[in-house]
């Protein structure tokens, strides 16, 4: 067979280029545009170089928001991944209860984010909310609008309620796809339940867990809507995460240069951490 050389085939790539350009490159370039220039309106721009980036990277306000964000995402992942995996392991593999469980698990995922925020906002009110009142009646002083700890507690509880299901569903899908023969072989080999989990289920779940952790990492690192509705970033700045701080720069202070620079830094952090995590997880794949 002779190989046909035809460079016109490159034209087939054009639609993809156009698509990527319109949904990623052009919007991103606008942000880049603002991040290296200064403007006072009237469509007049002045060169600012890396000034905005330096300001952001040096500002304590950014450091604090970033730290809060990392702590929040860390806690959320540490709770949701083991919990989701545990629930998936407990769910029935066949029978009529499968659909019941799956529907119950999917429910939190089907609720719009701002509704989730509102629900928890009302439920956790210390004077009239079911949750808030219950906690206070136990003798614990709980008020998420005044105490940072209460606010964090409520936010984490809300996020766990909202998103653990995603981990459960992914893990469950992974679990049911393990062929029966593995469990049968383990039985014959005399493996205890822990060994079955450690040597069969966990290795087989590696890929779905990678996806689950990646998705939860990215989503929780970008959390905005629920937090704004629930605490608005308060009390004080206690729950001002990166996205909330960004909106304060951009819309609160109309500080477009800093906002644009921060957007790019924010984006690069997520990109870098996702890449790092994925590379580490897949490192041993082909050895």
């Amino acid at each position, binding site marked *: 067979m002779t190989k046909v050389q035809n460079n016109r085939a490159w034209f087939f790539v054009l639609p993809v280029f156009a698509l990527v350009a319109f949904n990623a490159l052009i919007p991103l370039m606008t942000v880049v545009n603002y991040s290296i220039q200064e403007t006072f309106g009237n469509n007049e721009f002045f060169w600012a170089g890396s000034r905005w980036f330096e300001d952001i990277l040096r500002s304590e306000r950014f450091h604090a928001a970033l730290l809060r964000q990392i702590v929040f995402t860390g806690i959320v992942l540490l709770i949701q991944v083991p919990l989701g995996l545990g629930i998936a392991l407990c769910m029935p593999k066949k029978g009529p209860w499968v659909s019941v469980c799956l529907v119950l698990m999917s429910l939190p995922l089907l609720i719009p984010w701002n509704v989730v925020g509102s629900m928890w906002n009302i439920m956790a009110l210390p004077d009239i909310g079911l949750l808030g009142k219950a906690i206070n009646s136990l003798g614990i002083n709980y008020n998420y609008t005044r105490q940072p700890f209460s606010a964090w507690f409520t936010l984490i509880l809300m996020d766990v309620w909202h998103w653990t299901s995603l981990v459960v569903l992914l893990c469950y899908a992974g679990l049911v796809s393990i062929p029966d023969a593995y469990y049968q*072989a383990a039985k*014959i080999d005399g493996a205890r339940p822990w060994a079955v989990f450690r*040597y069969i289920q966990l290795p*087989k779940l590696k890929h779905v867990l990678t996806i689950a952790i990646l998705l939860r990492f990215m989503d929780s690192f970008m959390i905005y809507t629920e937090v704004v509705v629930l605490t608005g970033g308060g009390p004080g700045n206690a729950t001002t995460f990166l996205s909330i701080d960004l909106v304060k720069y951009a819309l609160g202070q109309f500080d477009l240069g800093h906002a644009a620079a921060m957007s790019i830094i924010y984006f690069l952090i997520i990109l870098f951490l996702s890449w790092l995590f994925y590379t580490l997880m897949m490192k041993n794949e082909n050895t």
Partner: protein
Amino acid sequence: MAKITIDNLRHAYISEPSRDEHYALKRVHLDWADGGAYALLGPSGCGKTTLLNLISGLLKPSEGRILFDDIDVTNDTPEKRNIAQVFQFPVIYDTMTVHDNLAFPLRNRGVDEVVIKKRVAEIADMLELTSTLHTRASGLTADGKQKISLGRGLVRDDVNVIMFDEPLTVIDPHLKWQLRSKLKELQQRIKRTMIYVTHDQTEALTFADQVVVMNNGEVVQTGTPIELFEKPMHTFVGHFIGSPGMNLLPCVVKGGQAFVGDTKIKADNVAMAPKSGKLELGVRPEFVTLAKSGSRTSLEASVVRVSDVGRYRVVETRVAETAVKFIVGENEAVPEGKVKLAFDPSHTQVYADGWLAGSRA
């Protein structure tokens, strides 16, 4: 190592079986000697895997008993039965090395590490896995992985029986042959009871001393490969084993003689043919020859097709409406048009309602 007795075993996958069709395994009795090589042969869905899983303890039978060395194990777990099973698709522990895979069943049983090391080395040597012993098991090819599955069974020297559930399904053809001979060789060397489930007659006949042919949840015949070939108890066995399968011709029995049309045919068991029922004459293509002219017990036939299958050719003819095949060697002339066929009387049998006449009292 153990002798295996299967006593009145029945199994249904539904909870309250009432009719015969509900049973995936209708009623099976088998006696297997210690150290033998057995094969369960039958088409897909005939119940052979069900029977295997019942023996290994992965399934609990609806009725009947399973005995290892005359001890009832019907209610024991697979672990307690101390058996090994190799599945259709290679089952290995991905994250472990080949060594750890082989050591796994021993470690679960709390065997001393020094003993494990020695034993694993021995088995790896037997299976030619020594060079890959410390690589990850997931990197091996399908046949290597299947060897690990087998090795996990062999590594326990007290294992009662090793079972194979169509173990060569995912193996490349040229390696299939190698692994098959390896299995046979191992069986002869270590003399463990082995049960091999397959739908491939070549695999069954080359591996086993005794082949159990199953169909529709029943055992149709148990016998050595030669018995199955020369004296099929049922037309199903005649068809299923052999390539091409046995020829079957509708016949009548009058005055102690079998007739196809008006031609008298000598048959081995004609005296035992019952008075009623559907009667057929069965003869393998290997025992059909062209008749010498003037023979009175020859059948008129017309050649319809000749297929060359390598070292011999299969000639398909028609006797009235029935197809009759026979075999012609490489260097023999292939007949055309009208021919006369003769059947070897000692290998021609009468079947009544599918069963060999006289085989069922």
